[in-house]
């Protein structure tokens, strides 16, 4: 724009010639503000307006937030101005670069930029000073602005990202505990019938009648998986029934720790059934940690020994269908339970009964009939209510966030919907 003006002046006075035009242009250039100089990209931009640094809230002490005001010359993206953030452990020390950032539209509206600078764990609580320099498109640097007080990265007690999750966990846990207390007080609790669990006695009875073993597979994960623990709790009931009927239970495991836990469980079940003499620890044994090695052994064993009942209770992956189809081929009654959604269709297709997701976790309470455990199932229902309420709220907010429905308030509903999805449910 300015150059165009200078050009026009020089062409309107041909007699004075190019010299006058150039002089006018130069004078104009000198008289213009520094903003123009920055626009032209020839001189350094003015420094950022201010800089502040403080610990990043609600984190593990691994970030410091540096907030700085934009350079007065940074009026649009075309200026090409970037900001160099430097850090040092002392005010006059050797500063090193820790970040380089340019303002986006949001930052320009607010007039400031916030940059989270990572701090290594070894430097937690150490004091740090920050400098910010505005850098022009040709690398011209402004004079720095600097923090006067040091900032320290501190680890907070609660992680900010998980506050809502903590609240929801607390509410659900409290509901479980309260319902356990209610159940203990003697109030009857109604639980719906779960066909898969009702079939446990039927399956064990069938194996007894046929004089064939019962095969129990507690998944292919270790004891640190909650599904394996849930599987072992069902094993306790299966083993107890088998002990009462004098049937043989075989438990080949994929992990050594599961083998030891299963042995303890089965032994105690035989003791509870009053048949400690019938317990044989060799029927619970380790095969291999390898997924398909384990499957190969189980398939071969099923075809050779033809167990009358097969239980698949735990975490399963690709082997689920191989096992269930082999069991189906030998005519065994099959009951499966898993919390792996991808494997559920396979079990449903190939097994007689399948415990789907939460039914699998409810098995222990259902089979024991223990008031404490039944109370915990009721507590779970409160969780379902919360989830249902959040689902409805989310659908409502997302619908209202449409400008066609709520006009100008749409943005406000969108903010709420975003907060729900990105903060509460993160």
């Amino acid at each position, binding site marked *: 724009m300015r150059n165009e003006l200078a050009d026009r002046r020089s062409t309107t006075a041909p007699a004075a010639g190019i010299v006058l035009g150039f002089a006018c242009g130069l004078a104009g250039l000198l008289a213009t503000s520094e903003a123009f100089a920055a626009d032209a990209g020839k001189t350094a931009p003015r420094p950022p307006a201010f800089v502040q640094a403080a610990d990043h809230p609600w984190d*593990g*002490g691994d970030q410091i937030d540096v907030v700085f005001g934009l350079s007065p010359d940074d009026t649009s993206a075309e200026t090409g101005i970037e900001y160099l953030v430097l850090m040092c*452990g002392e005010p006059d*020390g050797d500063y090193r670069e820790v970040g380089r950032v340019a303002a986006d539209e949001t930052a320009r509206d607010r007039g400031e930029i916030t940059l989270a600078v990572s701090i290594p764990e*070894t430097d937690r*609580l*150490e*004091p740090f000073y920050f400098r910010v320099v505005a850098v022009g498109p040709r690398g011209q640097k402004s004079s720095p602005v600097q923090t006067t007080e040091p900032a*320290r990265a501190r*680890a*907070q007690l*609660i*992680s900010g990202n*998980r506050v809502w999750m*903590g609240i929801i966990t607390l509410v*659900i*846990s409290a509901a*479980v*505990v309260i319902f356990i207390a209610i159940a203990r007080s003697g109030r009857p609790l109604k639980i719906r019938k779960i066909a898969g669990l009702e079939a446990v006695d039927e399956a064990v009875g069938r194996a007894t009648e046929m004089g064939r073993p019962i095969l129990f597979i507690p998944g292919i994960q270790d004891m640190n998986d*909650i599904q394996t623990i*849930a599987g072992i*709790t069902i094993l*306790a009931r299966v083993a107890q029934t088998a002990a009462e009927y004098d049937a043989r239970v075989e438990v080949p495991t994929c*992990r*050594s*720790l599961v083998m*030891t836990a299963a042995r*303890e*469980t089965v032994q105690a*079940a035989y003791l509870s059934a009053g048949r400690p003499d019938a317990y044989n620890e*060799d029927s619970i*044994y*380790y095969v291999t*940690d*390898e997924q*398909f090695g384990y499957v*190969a052994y189980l398939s071969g064993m099923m075809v050779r020994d033809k167990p009358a009942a097969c239980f698949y209770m735990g975490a399963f992956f*690709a082997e689920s*269908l*191989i096992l269930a*189809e082999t069991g189906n081929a030998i005519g065994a009654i099959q009951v499966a339970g898993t919390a792996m*959604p991808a494997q*559920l269709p*396979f079990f449903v*297709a*190939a097994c007689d009964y399948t415990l*789907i*997701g939460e039914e*699998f976790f409810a098995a*222990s*309470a259902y089979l024991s009939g223990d008031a*404490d*455990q039944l109370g*915990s*199932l009721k*507590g*779970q229902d409160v*969780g*379902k209510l919360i*989830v249902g309420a959040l689902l409805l709220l989310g659908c409502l907010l997302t619908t209202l966030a449409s400008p066609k429905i709520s006009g100008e308030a749409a943005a406000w509903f969108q903010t709420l919907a975003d907060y729900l999805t990105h903060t509460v449910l993160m």
Partner: protein
Amino acid sequence: MKRTVPLLITAIVGFIFVVSFFTPAAEFLGELAAVWFDILAGIAFILGGGNLLKVHLKKISDRQAGWGYSGVTILAFVATLVVGLGKFGSPPAPKQEFYGETFATLPLEALPESLVARVPGQIPEKENGEPLPPSVRRQIVQRDGQIEFRGWMLSNQKHDLEEYKDRRAWRKTVEALYEAAQPPEPLRGKVAYYTDHRALSFKGAMTDSDRQALLALSDEPVWRQAVEQLYEQSRKVTRVRVSWLPESFAVPESLRDRLRYDAQTKELVLQGPLSADQRDALKKQFPDAEPLSAKQRTTFRKKLESLGRPLNDEQAKILDRLLSQPLPESVGERNKLLGLALLEHGGLTKEQCDSLFAPYRQEVAWRAKVLELFHAAHQVKYPWSGEYRAQGSPFWWLYEYAFKPLTATMFAMLAFYVASAAFRAFRAKNVEAILLLGTAFIILLGRTFAGVLLTDWLPDSLAGLKIDNLTVYIMQVFNTAGNRAIMIGIALGIASTSLKVLLGVDRSYLGSGGE
């Protein structure tokens, strides 16, 4: 008691995990608990191995049905265990080795007093109580207003110390300490001390003057013994038989005093070890490929064609292009590239191939000889540091050619099982089964080209009814909704079960509900 202790451990560790998840300051506790679990699982693996042997040996001993399988299992188990633990045929890990250096074992405490550097200053304290970096922790002390460093400081140790505290004065002190903690001038850059490895090291072959300079540092017998050992080690002579030398063979400058070719025995004779740089310099005995002028290219082509059939137009173009552009490779590499490209676009006679590939064959053979010399001259520091599954090792062989095909075979059976399960599941017995069958039909068809073609004729206003769009809709809406419902139930079930286990309400996984 038998139940109480496990219950307590479960509850404590469980709550540690919960607290560490929500409290950043306690994250390390969760990591610690996870490490403890890994250690326990590792120990339990021995238990599993023992059980496997017991079960299968019993089967063999009792001649039970299928005892032959048990024999194979035990044989495979023992063989895999031996070759895996023994790491037979696995070369040491390159990162753990110090190529070009020889070592003598020397504990830090045995380093002579003359190797203690002192500078005035104070080791700064960190506000979070963080101790000095592990790489220098054992070598540095604060004494009488001075900082003492035992041994010679390595550049990585200097870097770690500088990073310890972001202060200009501290960096200056570290700089001074680094300068003070260096070997005397004639030995600088040649000798080093590695605290973590408890080893005195020397680069290249030690000369008599180097030896004298090292011995002059102390009269301690341990020190003298280590220096003498290092002297012997570093002067070890290695011979590798090489029946021919490259035409332009020249001993690299850095190996001038240590490497020679014995024409009588046809051996390369090297004194001391080879560093990676020296190895690379020795490898590079062949001229670089320069772009050829038009005249040179014509000569090249004529010569090649004189050995067999003439090149076709495309081959001629390729030849012209490859020979005219600058290539970073040697002549052998360039000719190999050219040969492969020509073969790809037409035929070449055996003589033409031989002519093109001969220089490359020579280069490969020479590189192999240099590598042989490099490894033969190297003093292995940690022979067991290699990857147990290193390519070419017996374990790798077992894994690649026995284990992988067997597991792949098992996995492949899934295809047949899916077909048989689908056949049973999709029988139209009732309304629900018909719905399932219909949905499956749409999905299966929508994932094939035939499905797309079938409904391609539908106008844009009915695009939603196209089978491929229906497939996407069913998967994204109905399937996702059902999946999420199951997932929510699972999540709540996990939370509830975890709580029952942590509070000791459900003890059946320990064997019984009671004590």
